[in-house]
């Protein structure tokens, strides 16, 4: 194994992680999250347009702390930190169930990094400066393959024209620009940077279950893109190649978010079992409570170990990164789903109420479970990889 034993998680990474945990504890504690996203159930689910529930000041502080610069290479003015650090940060974001465009921006950053063009560099510099970004393209056909997109593109000497509509764009209303995957007439996939206020671009917000996120369908009605915004050309499907190269990082980041939230679910449910009494006993006494919690822990730990391993592989052993990242996403999706289910059930009647925080995490987990492919989806791909390896 060419990987370092400690997953490359050294003192620098630990400092970042610990600082992030402290910052989020101070500036995004559960009380604040509740007030932000779950103050009013009618507002959350019955408004004509779902409200944008996030704290923009916290986001600005995060930018100041350098979190958007973290994954950006030094050549583009970023910190160029290892993926293990990015994963550790994403895990903290998940643990706080933070409503913010950071995860979307980190994913877009991963794609831009792999594109490697001047246009990509310009985008990355904007990210360092605090512009939130979101990757628009995959998801339409339940397909998360590198060339999945429902946007058509025509490239010419003057730039490119985008047409079509793409569903499931994350944090669409928080993003300053989108990294759009689009397919040309020959089937080649390119990547294009489009400002969220570009003429012809329309954001149609979804009504989503997850209270900590916004999501939209984004329509492109002959949106024009200058040559300087062609992040990767559709000729030779260069864009698809960049996405393919970024896929391990994308999966790892989403897995890390799931792991952080699952760890919160584990600890919160265990804490409830330590204090709640039924039948004259602390409910943690009952194996019908204790053993499911332990099973959650085992599943969460598997997902966490695999997530760190995937991140470290991206940094040090890229040839094994995709398989590990798919394993991490599969394990984290399943762990998130199981932790969610048990966190409601073992909280009993309380867990079924809006005022209990459990549902906020459950909804975020269900979202991430399916985003970029759930457990069975990843496993089908893993079977192909195993087959090749065997």
């Amino acid at each position, binding site marked *: 194994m060419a990987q370092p034993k400690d997953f490359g998680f050294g003192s620098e990474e630990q400092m970042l992680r610990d600082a992030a945990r402290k910052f989020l504890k101070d500036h995004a504690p559960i009380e604040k999250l509740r007030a932000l996203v779950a103050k009013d159930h009618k507002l959350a*689910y019955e408004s004509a347009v779902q409200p944008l529930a996030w704290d923009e000041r916290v986001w600005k502080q995060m930018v100041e702390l350098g979190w958007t610069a973290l994954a950006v290479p030094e050549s583009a003015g970023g910190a160029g930190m290892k993926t293990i650090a990015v994963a550790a940060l994403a895990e903290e974001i998940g643990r706080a169930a933070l409503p913010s465009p950071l995860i979307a921006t980190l994913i877009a950053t991963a794609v831009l990094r792999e594109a490697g063009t001047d246009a990509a560099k310009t985008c990355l510099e904007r990210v360092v400066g605090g512009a939130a970004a979101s990757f628009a393209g995959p998801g339409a056909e339940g*397909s998360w393959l590198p060339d999945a997109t429902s946007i058509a593109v025509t490239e010419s000497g003057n730039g490119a024209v985008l047409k079509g509509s793409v569903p*499931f764009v994350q944090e669409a209303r928080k993003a300053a620009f989108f990294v759009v995957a689009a397919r040309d007439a020959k089937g080649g996939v390119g990547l294009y940077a489009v400002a969220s206020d570009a003429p012809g671009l329309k954001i149609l917000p979804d009504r989503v279950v997850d209270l900590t996120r916004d*999501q939209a369908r984004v329509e492109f009605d002959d949106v024009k893109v200058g040559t300087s915004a062609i992040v990767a050309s559709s000729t030779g499907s260069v864009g698809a190649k960049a996405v393919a190269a970024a896929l391990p990082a994308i999966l790892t980041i989403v897995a890390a978010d799931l792991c952080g939230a699952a760890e919160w679910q584990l600890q919160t449910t265990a804490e409830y079992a330590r204090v709640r009494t039924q039948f004259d006993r602390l409910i943690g006494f009952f194996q*019908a409570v204790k053993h499911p919690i332990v099973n959650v822990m085992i599943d969460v730990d598997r997902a966490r170990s695999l997530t760190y391993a995937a991140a470290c592989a991206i940094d040090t052993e890229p040839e094994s990164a995709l398989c590990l990242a798919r394993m991490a996403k599969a394990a984290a999706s399943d762990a998130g789903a199981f932790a969610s289910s048990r966190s409601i*059930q073992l909280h009993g009647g309380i*867990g079924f109420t809006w005022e209990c925080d459990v549902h906020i995490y459950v909804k975020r987990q269900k979202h991430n479970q399916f985003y970029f492919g759930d457990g069975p989806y990843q496993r089908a791909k893993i079977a192909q990889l195993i087959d090749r390896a065997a």
Partner: protein
Amino acid sequence: MTEHEEFREYCRRWLAENRPAAPSFRLPLSPIEVMTEEQRRYLCAWEKKCYEAGLIGCDYPKEYGGGGHAGFQQIAGQEMGRAQVPYLINVIGLSMAAPTILNHGTEEQKRRFIPPLLAADEIWCQGFSEPNAGSDLANAQASAVRDGDNWIINGHKVWTSLAHFASWMIMVTRTSNEHKYNGLTYFIVPIANTKGVTVRPLIKITGETGFNEVLFEDVVVPDAYRVDEIGKGWTVAMTTLLYERGAAEGAGSGGGISLDERIAQLVSLAKRSRRDGKPAWEDAIIRDRVAQLAIRVEGMRQGHRRMRVEPLTDHPMRLPLQAKVTVSELMQDIAAVALEIEGPAASLYVGDPGAPDNGQWPLAYLNSYGFTIAAGSNEIQRNILGERVLGLAKSK
């Protein structure tokens, strides 16, 4: 044609002719999520009409407003399910309060309470759970203190579906602290416009209201509303729960959408949903999951059938006591698989114009925990099965 066959014919004809027009507003998936006054009015009107046509209360004695038949209710229930007409809103009254009163009530109580219950003129709710006695009914703390011909009730009940519409509550109170089980007494308590009663809607994780907490502050209840003897509350409550657990299937199918129909919905959803660029229904994992659920649905139906065939059952309570666990977990898993089929579209909630099946599946998934937690959590149900059916040592 037997009397029962004739009645089935009658039900079918009547339901075909009297099916109500679809409302202009959305109805929730189950009666215990009914929230608005217009929903209540629509459902009560329908239920009363069914009662007047003889489809409700058929097996209750005539003197209590019933039809005086035997074995008719099951037929009427089946036909209402098949006809896919709206569900019955007074579900707690019909499945719990009425049988409890019939079994344990005084003659006066039966005459006073059962007829308007059957007619949907009075809605009922149930006051068992408390903040510190969820699955642990015997730990109920709401107190009832004797005061001449009256009782003074103080306490706090939670998880009380329909309390916001209810005229009456069936309620377990503590009348003695000396004995845990024998210190409980069962009452019928007026809820609507009663001095000292506060009904506060709780909000579910779905964002819906529909269940409540109810606070009692020196509420005066006449002794005539006591059900069975002082200190017999546990026994009476067990009768109620027996009917409630039996009714769990009803809540999932009878009157509303059948579980069969849900499987067909899954297949249809899978054909419309895309997974990895292909219809989800072509994904062998999805097919396996749906087939597994279909087996459980059919297994439950056949278990229900077998329950009544004595030589093919080994213990009289073995199948009946399984019903609550199996139906509630089945409903949960059906919804969970629907979300898997939808993939990223599972993020879209009720009210999103692009949500598959109008966003019902995320809603159904979240609501399913109501059924696995309420009416004695499934953990407690498994204790009961192990102890009562298999004779294992008590876990508490």
